């Protein structure tokens, strides 16, 4: 409604009245129809109930809210001291506090993560939620290699997660392999499938790349769903063995974890152990990614995102660069997948639908592509946000979508959009996001 408002300091009462009238009519058009009427099942069919009071109060909220906004924030016209600016101010303030102290911040976060399960207010629900968030952090970090660093838009990332999960479940079922043996195997198998996917998509750019990766994700899911004899199809696989702590099982009885450490048996032990397991796996992902960024391979990924032709003109084999990005990204998804399988004890193709891929991609994009910290923030916001709104089940997706739109309008390149150089001569200067290319498929 910027057109209706004068940019000068004063606001004439006529303009104000007009604005309030227009927003009132719009609100009435929306809310009297959506909130004002309700169909109820009655004897012999549907009956219509009228909630006009509810609709009118919604209109009143809009009009009065807008009036308050005009009298406070928008005094000097819209865009001056608006919500975006306040959010920017708060956000920049937070960033400023932590800027240059990323190391301390990281250590503090790590310590918090380590003591979290033992804090007094932490119960099983919180540990489970933290485990879930950490799983998505790990997946986000893995996908960040492919999308954030190499700039290859992958819409089928969940396929590698599924491959990791099924690798463990099937190896355990058919060969009786333990979790600790299957964990690296799942990673290797997922990496192998990453290369298989990589080959056909090498020549593709942009949207075409995104479509093929999307199709790949669906192929894996459909195969798992239909290969009934081998994978159990829609029934899934159950009775997946739980992980042991250096050979000690989390069970009741002698010679098991609680007994050896002289603790009273409690089911929380395994929950805490799983939490630390995913924490270690996620930290491994982060460590390896940060390490790789400083190695020639990581720089080659970023160079690929910036300009593929220039890469080739400098003698970089872009085929290998792309395949290595797919393979390493897939490997971490494979690790996360086998963790998922061992945590749940049951897996089915239901868990690996496109919406999972979209959620992981949303975490990467929302966090700021290529930013490790951004992935953590976005995971906490999205997965934690989902949990907060668990009560409002019907509106959860609505709120989720709305929040995504608002954040993307406010920060189009993600929450943490600056790029930190991998090497510096004198001074480490963050590179502003408008210079960083987004790569293929964006």
């Amino acid at each position, binding site marked *: 409604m910027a057109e209706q408002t004068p940019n000068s300091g004063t606001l004439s009462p006529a303009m104000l009245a007009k604005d309030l009238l227009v927003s009132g009519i719009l609100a009435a058009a929306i809310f009297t129809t959506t909130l004002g009427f309700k169909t109820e099942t009655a004897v012999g069919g549907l009956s219509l109930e009228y909630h006009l009071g509810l609709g009118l109060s919604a209109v009143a909220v809009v009009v009065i809210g807008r009036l308050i906004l005009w009298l406070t924030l928008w005094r000097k016209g819209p865009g001056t001291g608006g919500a975006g600016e306040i959010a920017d101010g708060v956000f920049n303030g937070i960033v400023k506090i932590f800027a240059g102290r990323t190391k301390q911040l990281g250590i503090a976060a790590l310590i918090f993560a380590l003591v979290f399960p033992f804090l007094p207010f932490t119960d099983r629900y919180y540990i489970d939620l933290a485990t879930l968030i950490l799983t998505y952090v790990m997946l986000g970090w893995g996908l960040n290699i492919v999308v954030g660093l190499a700039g290859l838009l992958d819409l089928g990332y969940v396929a590698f997660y599924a491959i990791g999960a099924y690798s463990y479940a099937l190896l355990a079922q058919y060969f009786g392999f333990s979790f600790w043996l299957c964990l690296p195997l799942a990673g290797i198998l997922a990496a192998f499938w990453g290369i298989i996917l990589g080959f056909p998509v090498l020549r593709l750019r942009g949207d075409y790349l995104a479509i093929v990766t999307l199709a790949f994700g669906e192929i894996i899911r459909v195969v798992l769903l239909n290969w009934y004899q081998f994978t159990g199809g829609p029934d899934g696989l159950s009775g997946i063995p739980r992980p042991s702590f250096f050979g000690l099982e989390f069970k009741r009885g002698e010679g098991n974890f609680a007994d050896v450490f002289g603790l009273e048996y409690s089911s929380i032990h395994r929950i805490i152990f799983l939490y630390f397991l995913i924490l270690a796996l996620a930290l491994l992902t982060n460590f390896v990614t940060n390490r790789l960024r400083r190695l020639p391979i990581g720089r080659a990924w970023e160079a690929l995102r910036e*300009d593929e*032709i220039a890469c080739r003109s*400098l003698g970089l084999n872009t085929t290998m660069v792309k395949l290595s990005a797919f393979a390493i990204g897939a490997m971490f998804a494979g690790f996360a997948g086998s963790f998922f399988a061992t945590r749940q004890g049951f897996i089915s193709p239901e868990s690996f639908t496109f919406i999972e891929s979209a959620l992981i991609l949303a975490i990467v994009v929302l966090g700021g592509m290529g930013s490790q910290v951004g992935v953590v923030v976005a995971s906490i916001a999205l997965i934690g946000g989902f949990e907060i709104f668990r009560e409002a089940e019907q509106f959860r997706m609505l709120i989720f979508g709305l929040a995504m739109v608002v954040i993307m309008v406010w920060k189009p390149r993600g929450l943490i959009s600056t790029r930190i*150089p991998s090497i510096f001569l004198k001074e480490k200067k963050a590179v502003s996001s408008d210079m*960083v290319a987004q790569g293929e498929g964006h």
Partner: protein
Amino acid sequence: MAKWDENVLLSVEHLSMRFGGLLAVNDLSFNVGRGDITALIGPNGAGKTTVFNCITGFYKPTEGMITARHDDGKTFLLERMDDFKIPKKAKVARTFQNIRLFGGMTVLENMMVAQHNPLMIASNYTFGGIFGLSGFRNAEKEAIELAKYWMNHAGLTERADDAAADLPYGDQRKLEIARAMCTRPKLLCLDEPAAGLNPRESDELNKLLLFIRENEKTGILLIEHDMNVVMEISDHVVVLDYGEKISDGTPDQVKTDPKVIAAYLGVDDDEIEDVEQEIVKTATTEEGA
């Protein structure tokens, strides 16, 4: 026999490139001498960039042979090599008409990407590097030294930690050349390096190119429209028009070649003789004066 035919770094023989019905390059042959600055000139659409793309593997020529000869006697048939192997194995580096930098990466990072292949070997294809083996750390130090050396000569040391996209245009041109030099090429192919530069920047560019020729023994092949650059620094000029070679020689020879003048100024074929006479006349008057 001209100098560049004796000590050949790159020889292009009977090169033809056809795009559907268009014959962009027609039976072109020329040599690039070792340690020379060779300029490839011609009016717009003459096929210069096509020749470049054939040499650097971005196009596969329809016909012809392109041979690079290193001073240790190794020869490489460029038309048979993958584009990325040409800088890697045959040591032929190139720059682009529209600058292609890694804009979001710093100047130093750009230079490090150029040294990807030796660093990749030093890091044992990442496996050694991930555990921080000393072999890789030393190789990385050396790579930084080489980058510093070229940043210094391109006048970019001050901006080493700035994003490449943040540099002014002239510096971006120089960075692209410095980055190509970090691959330690035997032949450097520059596609219009002076395009869009102001006289001062163009002067700096000349100095950089002469420095490369003197100190690195790297041959330079360049496409250029700026005749000041061409005449000032090149040892050998090849002139193309409509995909064919119309002149080949030293800058002075080419400058007075009536065919070249006709191609640039658009003289009818039967008028060439008149132009030729005029040139002879001016030359004598100049000598007289």
